[in-house]
């Protein structure tokens, strides 16, 4: 079981001799068999950190260790045997099919001509099976959907057979089923293959569900590491994403908008329907409190407001505005 760790790592970009440090003194630890979600606002350095660990960017200061080996001192090939990655850049190779693409993962292992051995072919096929693309292995890359393409890139990283896989926003540009699918796949892979998988994402609720650990990056504020739920309870998300316009809703793991709430209303009844009723009320500027003069009873099929039974949210909001003497919605 291997471990990746960083010691006093400073990351950023060098330009004309001066270093633009984005994060400094990072002491992180990544362990086998864990899916880690890297989360943070834009500009907090998620991509910079991934590129640094991938060996594409030199750190400003500090060390990266894989077990006890200094990663930065390894040769290009040895790095390729330890870390594989999936970037945000789209790869388009004319005439290359899925199998060709995944075969690139075997580059650090095969000979100078790039011929695939029997073992290489087996590894490529296994990687394709893991992402469930084995039936499409003769399809051309540029005929694939974005979701399938992302699976192929993940398979390429799997075929590279490294203990560490890094992914930069693997769910960007994907629709919801594909986002969930990719997250579940990565979760399963980390647990089944014992790899360390580190991915950056903006899908907060998805990451909170799928990741074993969260690395929460804030601008210039270092990285908080922890099990997702612990970070929720400690209020870290609200601190990191502090804003006047929205807040991290601990009830559902999502961001909620901060509406100016002028009216007050008290709500009771069916639980599932209350959730959506409250969202509609918040948008209309009503705060739910106990014992307000205006009362709404939510039944299984309707809303009871001022002893009137109402059957849609739209009518309910109209009625509420009328009662409140506010006709303009």
């Amino acid at each position, binding site marked *: 079981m291997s471990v990746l760790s960083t010691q006093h790592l400073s990351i950023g970009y060098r330009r004309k001799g001066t270093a633009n440090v984005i994060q400094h003194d990072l002491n992180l630890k990544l362990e086998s068999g864990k899916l880690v979600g890297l989360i943070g606002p834009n500009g907090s350095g998620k991509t910079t950190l991934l590129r640094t660990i991938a060996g594409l960017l030199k750190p400003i200061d500090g060390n990266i260790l894989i077990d006890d080996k200094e990663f930065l001192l390894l040769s*290009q*090939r040895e790095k390729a045997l330890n870390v594989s990655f999936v*970037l945000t*850049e789209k*790869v388009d*190779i004319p*005439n290359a099919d899925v199998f*060709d693409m995944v075969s690139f993962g075997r580059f650090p292992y095969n000979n100078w*001509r*790039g011929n695939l051995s029997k073992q290489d072919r087996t590894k490529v096929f296994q990687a394709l099976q893991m992402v469930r693309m084995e039936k499409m292995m003769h399809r051309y890359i540029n005929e694939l959907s974005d979701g399938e393409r992302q699976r192929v890139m993940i398979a390429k990283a799997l075929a590279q057979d490294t203990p560490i896989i890094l992914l930069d926003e693997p769910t960007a540009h994907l629709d919801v089923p594909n986002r969930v699918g990719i997250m579940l796949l990565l979760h399963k892979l980390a647990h089944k293959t014992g790899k360390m998988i580190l991915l950056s994402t903006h899908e907060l609720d998805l990451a909170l569900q799928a990741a074993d650990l969260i690395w929460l990056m804030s601008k210039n504020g270092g990285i908080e590491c922890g099990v997702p739920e612990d970070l929720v309870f400690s209020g870290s998300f609200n601190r990191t994403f502090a804003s006047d316009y929205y807040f991290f809703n601990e009830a559902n793991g999502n961001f909620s908008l901060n509406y100016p709430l002028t009216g007050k209303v008290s709500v009771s009844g069916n639980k599932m329907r209350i959730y959506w009723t409250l969202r509609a009320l918040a948008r209309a500027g009503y705060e739910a409190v106990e014992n307000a003069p205006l009362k709404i009873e939510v039944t299984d099929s309707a809303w009871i407001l001022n002893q009137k039974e109402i059957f849609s949210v739209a009518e309910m909001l109209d009625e509420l505005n009328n009662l409140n003497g506010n006709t303009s919605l």
Partner: protein
Amino acid sequence: MYSRNHLLFFAFSLLFIFLFLADLAWGSVAIPAKEIYSVLLGKQSSSIYTEIIVNFRLPKAITAILAGASLSVAGLMMQTLFRNPLADPYILGVSSGASLGTALVVMASGFLPFSFVGNGWALIISAIVGAALVLLIVLFVSFRVNDIVSLLIVGIMFGTIAAALVSIIQNFSNPDAIKLFLMWTFGSLSAVTWNYLQILLPVVLVGIGIAFFLQKRLDGLLLGENYARGLGIHISQTRSLIILATGLLAGGITAFTGPIAFVGVAVPHIARGIFQTSSHKILLPACMLVGAALLMICDIITQIPDYTLPVNTISALFGAPVIIWIILRRK
């Protein structure tokens, strides 16, 4: 796919042999096939046919093969390195450097106390020096700038500077010198004699050898530099070797034949289209075969009765439509 490619290679080899013989047979003097056969096998050694074939048509055909193969392989490497389908062997300014060297010798010799003109070696050496100089500058720049697009722009800018200098020189030259220089820019396969081939051949072999040595790394570069690095490919070393090989191939050929346009940009696309692959293991030999065949066809066409057309015009007639086709297909 495996057997299909073998079949294609076999077919192209037959075409290659056929074109080679046709190139020997075709020309202002009609030579019967039987005579070519006996000359090639060394059965007959005294006729006028022997003189034409051995000392004129054979080196010309070999030059066509070398030039077609070299420019196509160089073009393939440039398209892969810059990930740009319109890149060609001259994109780094090699031909402009060679032009500048040639222009200096041909036209500036009017001001010089000694005369170079008429001395083939001076022309070739100046072209080689010009091409090598531009190449060294580009290679030096490639160590300093890290991204490939900047390198592309730098190459094009050097080309522009060289072209401007050539124009200035032309402005001060006499018409005879300008004509001689223009003849060089038209490109000519027949100027290469056996003596020159002794130099050109090893240069080309080294360039193509480097290209074959790099075949796996070239495949990796198709993924982009970041992914290639992630697969363990040493990028700056690979880039230097590609520039070196391109310089040897394009620079060497240009020095001896003058710039031959469009072969380098068109052939890699034709090879990709026919062989339906992006793997350099197949594309490198495919480009050599297709490039050699294409340039031999060009050479045969230029030998229309009574006139000899510059090979550059014929290769442009072939190449330009291919570029238009690429643009239309990318839509």
